[in-house]
């Protein structure tokens, strides 16, 4: 078998295993003591009945509202991201896994999700600025009231477990943002991660200097098959692994026929 073929067999199963592991690890908060104060660089609502880790965006909002510099939170996020950059979006984030699952179902139905929409890195940084700015201004975790991750893993389970009389206004808002996010994910591959995720913005900052990198060797023939398969719509070869949009999912490595791309440190 061709060596590149062997590599293509390798990365996808590893990534899928890591995504399943990420999903399990984020949901082992069965008891009070299993609900830890560990912060992981993934957008997963800590109000989920089984959440075991803290959502960094919710936590940062809390500290913004408290007007305190969160040394432990910044240090934790920094450590994770210096090690692996935005690969957490591609391999660990449960909300990213949901987006991948939507893309996978769609491709099995024979309708490939569009990956062609141009990246617009500024959008997610504006979102991050707005999220933290609003928390600072309103003294509230304002973004949590709209967050589609919270809608899916916290609002729906709690509403099902503890029905309240009538439907509260913010529950309707939650359902609308979730529906819009899922619809956009069906139309465009990883739409939320590309343009709106505030956690993706923080993770993306670390991409350029993280220890885990994607290297392109001289064997590259610039056939651009890697770019055709990029779920984040990266459209330049020199941006693979370096752009704030690259989630280091390894699809480019899998699709390379000359084995010119590889993970490196």
């Amino acid at each position, binding site marked *: 078998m061709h060596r590149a073929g062997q590599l293509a067999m390798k990365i996808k199963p590893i990534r899928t295993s890591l995504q399943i592991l990420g999903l399990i690890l984020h949901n082992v908060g069965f008891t009070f003591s299993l609900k830890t*104060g560990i912060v992981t660089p993934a957008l997963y609502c800590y109000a989920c009945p089984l959440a075991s880790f803290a959502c960094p965006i919710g936590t940062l909002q809390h500290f913004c509202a408290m007007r305190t510099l969160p040394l432990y939170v910044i240090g934790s996020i920094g450590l994770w991201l210096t090690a692996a950059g935005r690969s957490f979006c591609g391999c660990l984030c449960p909300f990213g896994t949901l987006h991948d699952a939507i893309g996978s179902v769609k491709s099995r139905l024979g309708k490939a999700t569009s990956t062609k929409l141009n990246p617009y890195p500024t959008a997610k940084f504006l979102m991050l600025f707005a999220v933290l700015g609003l928390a600072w201004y309103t003294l509230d975790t304002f973004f949590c009231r709209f967050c589609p991750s919270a809608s899916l893993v916290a609002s729906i389970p709690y509403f099902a477990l503890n029905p309240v009389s009538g439907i509260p206004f913010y529950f309707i808002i939650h359902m609308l943002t979730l529906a819009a996010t899922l619809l956009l994910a069906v139309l465009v591959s990883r739409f939320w991660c590309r343009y709106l995720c505030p956690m993706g913005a923080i993770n993306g900052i670390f991409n350029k200097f993280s220890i885990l990198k994607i290297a392109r060797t001289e064997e590259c023939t610039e056939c651009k098959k890697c770019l055709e398969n990029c779920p984040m719509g990266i459209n330049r070869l020199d941006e693979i692994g370096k752009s704030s949009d690259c989630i280091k999912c390894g699809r480019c490595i899998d699709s390379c026929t000359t084995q010119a791309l590889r993970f490196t440190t």
Partner: protein
Amino acid sequence: MIPRAHLLPRLAKLLLIGLFIFLVLAGLEKEYGVVQSFVQFICRACIGLDS
């Protein structure tokens, strides 16, 4: 032997890791419990169950 051009970025990363470890240790005692309380106690308003 590692060339100087490769050595400097590696050293910078090492320093960055050191800085983040320092930040974690500096804030751990004061903040860990606060962060854990966010996971343990649910804000019903945030998830849209209370107005």
